[in-house]
């Protein structure tokens, strides 16, 4: 089974990925990105979406969560990531384990008292 890769981003930045064999789509805002995503989800196996857009498209992306393909992955944009990808990982670990095993050390203990996360 062969597939292709695509990038959806809000600026010209994504064009660089076109030169390495992916197809780039530019979307100026979230609704446009949602339209593109819906259109290309069938044709592409892996779709990278810049995290600013991905954060707003949670519902649309969630639709593909239960099947293996397409894979929709957030990537940072030129201005650096907004932490959405990391946030997703954190949420998943909370869902699966009932607690967050990745970021506990990084954030101050003050704003995340122990046990609060574990309550399910």
């Amino acid at each position: 089974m062969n597939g292709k890769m695509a990038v959806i981003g809000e600026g010209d930045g994504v064009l660089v990925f076109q030169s390495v064999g992916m197809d780039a789509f530019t979307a100026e805002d979230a609704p446009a990105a949602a339209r593109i995503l819906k259109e290309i989800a069938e044709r592409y196996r892996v779709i990278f979406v810049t995290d600013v857009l991905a954060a707003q498209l949670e519902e649309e992306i969630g639709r593909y969560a239960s099947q293996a393909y397409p894979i929709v992955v957030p990537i940072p944009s030129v201005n650096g990531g907004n932490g959405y990808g990391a946030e997703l990982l954190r949420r998943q670990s909370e869902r699966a384990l009932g607690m967050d095993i990745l970021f506990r050390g990084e954030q101050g203990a003050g704003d995340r008292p122990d046990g609060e996360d574990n309550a399910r």
Partner: protein
Amino acid sequence: MARINVNPTRMELKKLKARLKTAQRGHKLLKDKTDEMVRRFAVIVRETKRLHDEVEAEVVDVLRQFSLASGSMSKKEIALAFSMPSVSLELECATANILNLEIPKLHLKETQGEEYPYSFARVTSEADLAVAAAGRLVSRLLRLAEMEKATAMLADEIEKSKRRVNALEYIMIPDIEETIRYISQKLEENERAGLTRLMKVKSMLEERGA
């Protein structure tokens, strides 16, 4: 806890006992499965996080480099220069099976073309750097995609399977147990009632005979 609505007969009792056995066995198996998934998830999620941080930093680097390069060109020129891919990527998509969960498995087949897809006259050297870096990044981006999907699917599956385990442990099994208790009590009571009736009849007969 609710008792299941069945007739208190030996037949039902037998059926329920079989169901209880199945439920207990299913509960044990599901619980083992969940435990194993949780263990794997803990490993995978850590690795995904590490890869995620690395790749994220590199993507930002590539994009910065590219925006430097594209700053000196017009929009039209950029679109023109970068619209032809230098390499054609062939992506082999398969699925792997962990604990009965279909996760994606990607394999990249690169067919090398010319290294830079544009004429050197029109594009600055910064663009070369960006394109080269992006090329190196592709395989790791794919690895990340694969891992992130696996993490997401595993998290989803763990949640579902936990819910099933809990439903079995706290609802199904206690319900069945209570119903079994109810039926056997009812049967015993019937037996006792029959016995007393017999004794009563016997004493009445004796009285009449005397």
